[in-house]
């Protein structure tokens, strides 16, 4: 029970991340303009969509809306290709609608179109560009593709996708990613794209099934529903913290002083007091002094007992012991 809760939190955490990375500063009317009202919720929930999948309802209806959207987008794509900018209808001047193809391949086959991503490109004042509001319109599998997919599920092969590395001005370079077809089938075609974006470039994609798939070997199952449900996460680069030289301006503590070392850098040094510096000399000296004092205090007793002042101390015990010994005997 507890683990389920943890898992739920975990999933929720992911969905929050998703929202955060999608730049949720969008205006509601945009979605209407893009015809994404249904899609919006489903794809957003797509994050939470795993949770939705657990309840077993809603996912099919939302994915069907994706398909509808997909068809409508394909008509739109021809329009978009003729003129990609429509600043008048957008909130921020300088924003640009762009779209690029998602292509797929089954095992060794050629890459064929599988859908299209649409996004908005904003050029920031200092020339940097950012991509945001990334949406995917997935084409449903044709019969041939369905067959090919089943084949690679049987072979335990990879289902691969690719997008152009430069989405603004697509060139020859493509970013490729793959998923075990069995994983995707087991997840009922619930897929997840993690796109690493750098301005207008896709650096890398992680393509995985939305449901964890770590079993090895993967069991062979076919999807019960042949509609895709996509979950897109965009990631941009983290910026490293700028390292600022630390200036040591804390005030000097009592007993500290600045000492300039060989390298010319002043360092704080706690000044030792007299005892700390010289204890190793004082201690033996003290012992010697104590010794001397005790021997001196002993000495005046000797003349009092009638002995010569300079009589060797060693002679005394000798004599005593000798006398004692004689007495014992």
């Amino acid at each position, binding site marked *: 029970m507890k683990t389920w809760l943890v898992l739920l939190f975990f999933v929720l955490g992911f969905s929050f991340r998703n929202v955060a990375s999608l730049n949720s500063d969008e205006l509601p009317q945009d979605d209407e303009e893009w015809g994404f009202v249904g899609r919006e919720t489903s794809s957003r929930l797509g994050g939470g969509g795993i949770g939705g999948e657990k309840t077993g309802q809603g996912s099919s209806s939302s994915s069907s809306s994706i398909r509808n959207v997909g068809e409508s987008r394909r008509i739109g794509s021809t329009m978009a290709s003729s003129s990609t900018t429509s600043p008048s209808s957008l909130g921020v001047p300088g924003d640009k609608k762009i779209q690029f193809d998602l292509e797929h391949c089954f095992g060794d086959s050629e890459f064929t179109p599988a859908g299209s991503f649409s996004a908005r490109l904003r050029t920031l004042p200092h020339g940097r560009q950012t991509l945001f509001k990334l949406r995917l319109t997935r084409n449903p599998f044709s019969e041939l593709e369905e067959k090919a997919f089943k084949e690679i599920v049987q072979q*335990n092969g990879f289902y691969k996708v690719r997008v152009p590395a430069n989405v603004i001005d697509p060139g020859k370079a493509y970013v490729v990613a793959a998923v075990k077809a069995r994983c995707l089938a087991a997840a009922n075609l619930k897929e997840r794209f993690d796109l690493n974006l750098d301005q207008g*470039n896709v650096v*890398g*994609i992680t393509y995985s099934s939305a449901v964890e798939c*770590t079993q090895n070997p993967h069991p062979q199952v076919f999807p019960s529903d042949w509609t895709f449900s996509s979950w897109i996460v965009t*990631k941009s680069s983290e910026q490293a913290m700028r*390292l600022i030289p630390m200036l040591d301006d804390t005030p000097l503590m009592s007993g500290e002083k600045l000492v300039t070392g060989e390298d010319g850098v002043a360092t704080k040094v706690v000044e030792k007091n007299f005892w700390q510096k010289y204890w190793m000399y004082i201690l033996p000296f003290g012992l010697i002094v104590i010794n001397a004092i005790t021997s001196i205090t002993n000495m005046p007793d000797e003349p009092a007992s009638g002995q010569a002042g300079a009589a060797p101390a060693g002679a005394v015990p000798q004599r*005593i012991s000798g006398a004692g010994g004689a007495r014992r005997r």
Partner: protein
Amino acid sequence: MAHHRQSLNLQQQQQQQLLLLAFVFVLGFLTSSCHALYEDQVGVWDWHQQYIGRVKHAVFQTQGSGRKRVVVATEQNALASLNLRTGEIYWRHVLGESDPIDVLELASGKYVMTLSGGTNVRAWHLPDGVLIWEAAIPSSKGSNPPRLVALPVDIDNDKINDLLVLSGSVLTALSGQDGTTIWKVDISGKDVDIRDVIVATEELKAYGVGFIGDSGFTIIEIDLHAGTITDRKTAMTSETLSVTELLVSKQFAVVLDSKGTHLVTLSINANGLTVLETALSSLSLNAVGLPKLLPTKLDGAISLALGDLTAIVAVDPTSGELRTVETLVGAVAVSDSLSLANSKHSVAIIQLLEGGHSQNTFSLHVHGEDWTEVVQKETVKLPSHRGHVQKVFLNAYLRTDRTHGFRALVIGEDDSLLLLQQGEIVWTREDELASIVDAKSAELPLERDGVSVAEVEHDLAEWLKGHFLKLKATLFLASADEIAAVQESRLNQADKTKLTRDHNGFRKLLLVLTKSGKLLALHTGDGRIVWSLLIPGFRAPHGGPQVCPEKLLLWHVPHQHAEERPEVLVLGKSCSTSDFPAVLSWVDAYKGIELHTMKLSYPVTHAFGLPLTDSSEQRLHLFVDDQAQAHLLPGSEESLDLFLKQKDNAYFYEVDRTKGIIEGYGIKGLVESSRQTSSEGYLFETEKLWSVVFPEETESIATVATRRPDEVVHTQAKVLGNREVLFKYLNKNMIFVATVTPKSVGLLGAASPEDSTVVAYLIDTVTGRILHRVTHPSMQGPVHAVLSENWVVYHYFNLRNHRYEMSVLETYDQSRVGDKGVMQLMLGRHNASAPLSSYSSSNVEVKGQSYFFTYTVKTLTVTTTARGITSKQLLLGTVTDQVLALDKRLLDPRRSATPTPSEREEGILPLTDAIPISPQGYLTNGYQVEGLRGILTIPARLESTCLVFAYGLDLFYTRTAPSRTYDSLTEDFSYALLLITIVALLIAIAVTYVLAERKELAEKWK
């Protein structure tokens, strides 16, 4: 009476105090741990060797009463003066990487003149190598090799002979005194291409000889005093000339025609220029392929290479007629002409003796003035691992009978340097060790029954005596001689250099592969060469395509069957083309014998060992060819079965630095037809699974760091001060990639801080998942990085603060964050033994921090220990060619300005903006590993200790214990002192016992 007793007690007290003091004193000695090295510890377990590299120019200094020496310049840009009697280095200078020495000359008997890159002329003082002056000549157009002529005359009247430098089309006269320019003249004209300068001393004229277009010669006469062109002469030829090589001597110039069928001779005499064309066939030289003029400077002759043939053709200076004087077959080296005192000339020709292949025997002929006369004839047998002679430099000396004797300095095929005299090898320098390509370590054989330790370590009496001496030295009682004896015994410990395994795993073989295709085994004890092998499979036939050794792979490392021999596999590729099939060679690591060699039918782009071994402990290797197909070796049924089981989990990746792409591949099915040719490996189809494409305009790959495949990690969890657990994200397939802005790849200042960025990536190479991506704006490469366990440390330059920086990234697995406590770590659901899959959705937390760092770094690596328990040290090759050890704790992203008490307990240091460098951190102590290129760390069997081998032009080896030697006593631990103390204490106990008994008895009697 009472007083007496008192004083007695006092005395006893004093004695006790003294005893106590002595005991503390003794204890202090026993436990004194050393944090740095003492003078007498130098050389006990470290060694340092100095090399210069492959010699390309050599000049002898044997006249006069001074020490006989030879000054050499090498391909590794080192300039050195060697003792001609022993080969020892008198002095050495290593110039920068972009500072190759083109010309080496001796001037005025005490200066060494060098010309680097046609622009830098330097004068060095011959006896001590001090740089006297340096002059920069503005570089001018033209790619011809520059020339430097040390004039035998003084033209600026300062009593020091001057120099002429031809660089591009500009001829410059430099003062021999201080390198100032006396005059400068541009000798180029329309279509004129001056190649060489000759000097006529008597007339005080210099002549520039070169081409006009490609069908004519031109000679320019220059007045040496004024530096003006006084005359130009031209002579046209009917043939078009091959303008790549022009041989010029005082009286003639020779060039080949463009078809390679004729030799065109230009005779220079008082009447003018005469051109004569001679067909090679008329010289009875049948061209095999294109002939080539050799740049050897012969007096009155030239040398030609025609395929396998080397011909020496004499030139008649007046008529320009040619005459073949010698045709030599096979591996031949011809020296430059050596002029002797009585205006005679000699040339040495060294040639492999017929049938001398198996013996590697050479004949050394020294020809006199007339080519028919042979003044000296010797036969020299070189060790087989030296290969053929590549180059020979001739030097003459006066024999006791006043005749001329000759000695020859020769360069072997393995780049070693040898001095031959009277048919003997006088000395050898192993200069191939200056160009190590790859290094690995191998275990030594086990101790045989016959050789016991006692035999080597003498008897007990001697052992005790040694320790007694040591004790005396420790207590400062030993005489100077005894101290010397102690030091001697320390340095020459018999067990240090034994060729068997030791208990602590300090004795190992260092297998080093050099650029010349030689594999050597060095003993870690003293650095001596145990065996060396010029890999026969890599040796090119005379003039054939060169095979460059590339990689050393541990093919067979026996653990279970320790009596078996380890084998290494050397991978070689063509030096020039990338589609040349690779060559493999298997070598026995104990004996240094090539077991077998194979020429593959496919080129290899990269090769790696798999974490699989067959029943005979042979490691499975995968070779990827240029079609991205994988070949599995060894080609045995067993290895195939093993691999097929793991095939679905096998992935590899390729980094294309030019395109800025990293691609990941999975293994598909076996190509059945390859079962027939399984000796070349089983062929597997591959499938491209992922790619990471770095934006072309903004990022280019600067460095890729991978984890050591044999790294051992002790624990997956890090227990914090508050008893919580952090789980390290230990992904074996994670790599670190750093990219830099392409504009800023060049020199510092090539790009402004605004458009110069370093981006660091952590990438999983199975799925292509970018685990982390962090940008460092205003930073510039070069980036050096090291990846170990769950952390990566990288080094780059900060353009804003104009300082170097080091950053650390540590990865932690947050998906296990639920198991917080230590108990849950052991018993919880995600305990430490749960497997980690690249396919599972990971939740990696990356902690990072940056610090300033003082030095440029040449190479970066990390210590490794046998079980990974000992803390780690980063080893940096600094710009001063030293190895600096830095505690990993200094680079901990969890450092904060004010650590909490629990963090302090954990050992986290307070945050500072810069990494402090302690002078005791230099592992190289006072040495410099000149031209440092790589550091190899090898775990010893003793957990606390790591062996470090640094190589560049020099070699250095030492041991380091990052957490101190907590599992063994130090070398200087005095066993004798311990024994004596114990014995003394026992006696004292016995004596005091008896005394106490007596006293007690006395008391009772009272």
